[in-house]
């Protein structure tokens, strides 16, 4: 089948799934998986170089007065792979996690909106007309809103959804301006490469922030932590692993098609560095598992932007070869991030499913009841910390290579790229700390609540998608060279001058070294395991410093784990503490709550929103429902108009 037929088939399956899904869950799952397979069938040959490098379809059929124009090239195919793969995995996961038995009302609605969100994301990727892009974008935004607020009875989910909707529409206004300005300058809504239109360059700033809101770019990420934390976990995985990538796709797509201003690279690099550092610092301080993962998304978007910014700087420095490496790292990190972040969100979802808790200080010791989830979460934790031999390291390493090459060339670019490299080192170490904390607090030690002691392993339909994502993480880590063709074709689609076919030699060596390390590590673990058994093994309670009545509450909590770093950043994090001390000879209870709200939200957005609301409230006082005053408004309005007309006539 041709690319067009496959894509059409996928779209039809999704639309049919949206129509029938609410009533037929199994049919919906089958249709969605068929659609995912179809889209993968269209995208993968293009990325592997087996199919045509670009698929384009123009039709006289008009939607909204504009003829339909679709296009799939290697760059959009790269993102389509993620939409299909993670979308399919989330669908399978949701069939057990958010099933009709437990959620008779919201599960059917969830199926409808999930199909519609996937089809909208697919349309965003293939739309080659500004108007249609905007329509698809809006459908995507609205579907995501309904998915975030599936659990409508939860107040937190409703307010998170509202914040998401408000922020997304702030971005949509910028995008409307962006596409309208392109249409006004070029005379048509049709999109495509227009690199010689130098006058379009300033529009990059509209695109950067318009797409940045959706992409979770610091400091316009404010909606992201609460939306990702309060959505159902399969939706969180879809949002964090796929939806934010649509924002990144927008930035990459239009910086490739349109000319960019000279300062674009620096701005993207600066935003990326700020996001990488502050995102992970805030993640480390969180005590809610899903909120921690959400902040970590801000960090990973930051790393992607560092690579992308490096590429833009490379373009403006005479097509420096290091720009290519940084872009390769950024593109591979898009894939990697969506793989390990959806794996981690699925893991968090399984914990939530089994215990009903996502507050880490009430969990612990879950590895006994949920060994597979614990192992897969640990794998994801190593991957997201950017450690060898998994996939996160490969892409971060490519970005580092770009930055270090630029530094070693001692050009003027070195001054900006070196701080980015140092920031990446710092955020890497913080990510490690964050995920040691998350994994260990949730899965190791003793359970901190009854719910944590009563955990149970989830079923195959939740574990299966996690296994699939975990194996993909391993595959990219151990054989990165297999994935190079996809990256190099996407680079070519972004900037045809940068076409590189051969995989660079270091990445081949790195793949072998990582595979060898993984093999030796397996042997070493097996050997030590056997040695332990042969030498004789005794189980005993954890040493409690001679204290005879240890309890689970004596363990280090997540909050105490991040205490040292929290003491370094008291002002940035702006945390709130609620302390109720035990009082009297027979204290009835005590409380100690530490919260780290979003700095940007509570110090910048909320005060501004408060001013807007106060002005609106003041204006509303005019509308009180007393007729005689309305007549006065009318008369005074007429009088003002009459005066204006009179002045006009006199002149």
């Amino acid at each position, binding site marked *: 089948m041709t690319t067009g037929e496959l894509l059409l088939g996928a779209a039809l399956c999704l639309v049919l799934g949206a129509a029938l899904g609410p009533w037929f869950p199994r049919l919906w799952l089958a249709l969605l998986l068929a659609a995912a397979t179809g889209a993968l069938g269209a995208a993968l040959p293009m990325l592997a170089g087996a199919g045509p490098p670009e698929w384009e379809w123009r039709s006289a059929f008009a939607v909204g007065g504009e003829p339909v124009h679709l296009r799939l090239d290697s760059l959009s195919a790269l993102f389509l792979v993620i939409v299909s793969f993670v979308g399919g995995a989330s669908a399978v996961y949701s069939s057990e996690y958010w099933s009709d038995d437990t959620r008779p009302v919201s599960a059917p609605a969830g199926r409808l909106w999930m199909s519609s969100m996937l089809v909208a994301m697919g349309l965003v990727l293939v739309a080659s007309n500004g108007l249609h892009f905007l329509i698809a974008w809006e459908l995507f935004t609205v579907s995501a809103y309904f998915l975030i607020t599936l659990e409508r009875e939860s107040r937190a989910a409703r307010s998170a959804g509202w914040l998401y909707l408000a922020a997304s529409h702030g971005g949509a206004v910028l995008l409307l301006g962006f596409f309208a300005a392109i249409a006004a300058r070029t005379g048509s809504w049709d999109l495509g490469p227009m690199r010689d239109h130098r006058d379009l360059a300033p529009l990059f700033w509209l695109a950067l922030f318009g797409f940045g809101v959706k992409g979770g770019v610091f400091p316009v990420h404010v909606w992201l932590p609460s939306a990702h934390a309060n959505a159902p976990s399969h939706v969180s995985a879809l949002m964090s692993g796929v939806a934010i990538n649509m924002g990144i796709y927008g930035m990459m797509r239009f910086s490739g098609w349109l000319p960019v201003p000279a300062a674009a690279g620096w701005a993207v690099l600066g935003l990326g560095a700020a996001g990488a550092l502050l995102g992970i610092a805030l993640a480390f301080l969180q005590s809610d598992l899903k909120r921690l993962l959400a902040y970590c998304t801000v960090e990973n978007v930051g790393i992607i932007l560092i690579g992308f910014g490096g590429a833009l700087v490379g373009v403006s420095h005479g097509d420096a070869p290091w720009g290519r490496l940084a872009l390769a790292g950024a593109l591979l990190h898009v894939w990697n991030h969506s793989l390990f972040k959806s794996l981690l969100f699925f893991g968090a979802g399984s914990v939530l499913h089994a215990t009903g808790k996502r507050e880490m200080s009430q969990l612990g010791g879950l590895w006994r009841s949920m060994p597979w989830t614990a192992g897969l979460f640990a794998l994801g934790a190593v991957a997201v*910390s950017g450690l060898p031999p998994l996939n996160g390291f490969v892409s971060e390493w490519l970005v580092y290579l770009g930055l270090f090459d630029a530094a070693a060339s001692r050009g003027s670019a070195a001054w900006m790229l070196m701080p980015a490299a140092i920031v990446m*080192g710092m955020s*890497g170490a913080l990510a490690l700390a964050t995920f040691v904390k998350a994994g260990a607090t949730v899965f190791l*030690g003793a359970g901190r609540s009854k719910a944590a002691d009563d955990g149970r392993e989830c079923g195959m339909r939740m574990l299966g998608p996690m296994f699939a994502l975990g194996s993909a993480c391993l595959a990219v880590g151990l054989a990165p060279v297999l994935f190079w063709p996809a990256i190099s074709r996407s680079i070519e689609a972004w900037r045809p001058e940068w076409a590189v076919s051969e995989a660079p030699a*270091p990445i081949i060596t*790195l793949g072998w070294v990582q595979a060898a390390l993984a093999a030796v590590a397996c042997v070493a673990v097996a050997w030590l395991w056997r040695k332990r058994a042969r030498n*004789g093994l005794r189980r005993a309670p954890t040493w409690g410093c001679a204290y005879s009545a240890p309890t689970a509450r004596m363990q280090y909590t997540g909050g105490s784990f991040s205490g040292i770093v929290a003491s370094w950043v008291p002002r940035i994090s702006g945390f709130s503490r609620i302390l109720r001390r035990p009082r009297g000879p027979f204290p009835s209870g005590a409380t100690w709550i530490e919260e780290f709200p979003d700095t940007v939200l509570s110090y910048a957005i909320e005060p501004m929103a408060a001013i807007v609301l106060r002005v609106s409230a003041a204006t509303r006082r005019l509308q009180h429902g007393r007729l005689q005053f309305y007549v006065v408004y009318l008369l005074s309005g007429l009088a003002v108009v009459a005066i204006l007309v009179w002045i006009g006539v006199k002149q």
Partner: protein
Amino acid sequence: MIIALESAVRLAVWLLLAPLLPGVINKVKAWVAGRRGPPVLQLYFDLARLWRKSVVMSTLASPGFVAGPAIAWVALAGAAMLMPLGPAGGAISFKGDVLLLVYLLALARFCTAWAALETGSAFGGMGAAREVSFAVLSEVALITAVLALSVQTGNITLSEMLSLSVGSGAMLLAAGLFGVLLAENCRVPFDDPNTHLELTMVHEAMVLDHSGPPFAVILHGASIKLLLFAVLLSQVVLPVGKLSPLAGTATLAGAVLAVTVCVGLVESLTARMAFRRVPLILTASFLLCLFALLLALKGGA
């Protein structure tokens, strides 16, 4: 065949020589204090004894309690194989291997901290929290040092970065890296390997609950890490790679010995610092590396 043999010899040298360093440090400390001290080979005896001993595991510990030390040891041994040894170069050398080395050290840290948290002991939590938090600053210093070296030599392959030239910033870099060495290997003034008070430990608190072969693996891994940093520090200051094989090896061995003696002297002459001061010294190490980086950028063409 030759390559395999050479790698095997190289690995054997790393694994066999590494436990010597803690012995030398202890001998220096004993000498300064006027004691006779334990034999230089004490760690070898300890490792042999631990390897034969049976294991006591906490009832709470998962298989990660044993897997963590094993993976950490492999990561450290792998990092050692990447490190060039003077004129002999590295076992494997490719562009960007220096970053793999830095991240293998991080992998070892992840696994040790993870294993420390397995038992649910508050001491393990304390140690792991300190280790990963202080590592944020030492990692920054290390990355900056690597940047300085790559700017200095215009290269990001370890063997090239370490063999080329002694830059004007070498002494700054050496001072900064010495601070990182002390912090990463949990030596005084960051941590006291001989302390008996759990509340003030970093590394020792993490390994309190380990015993038998897994504990031996942890101790051996820690000694590899110390040797790794000593070799790195020596090669940053001395262009060992340019010497003849014999002279190079001798110089490298002498320099590593000198670094080890310095660690012992620091340990004898200073006291462990309060934990809230630790970030200050690590920041100072970072600044030293940063000045070296600026010198490299502005200095030699």
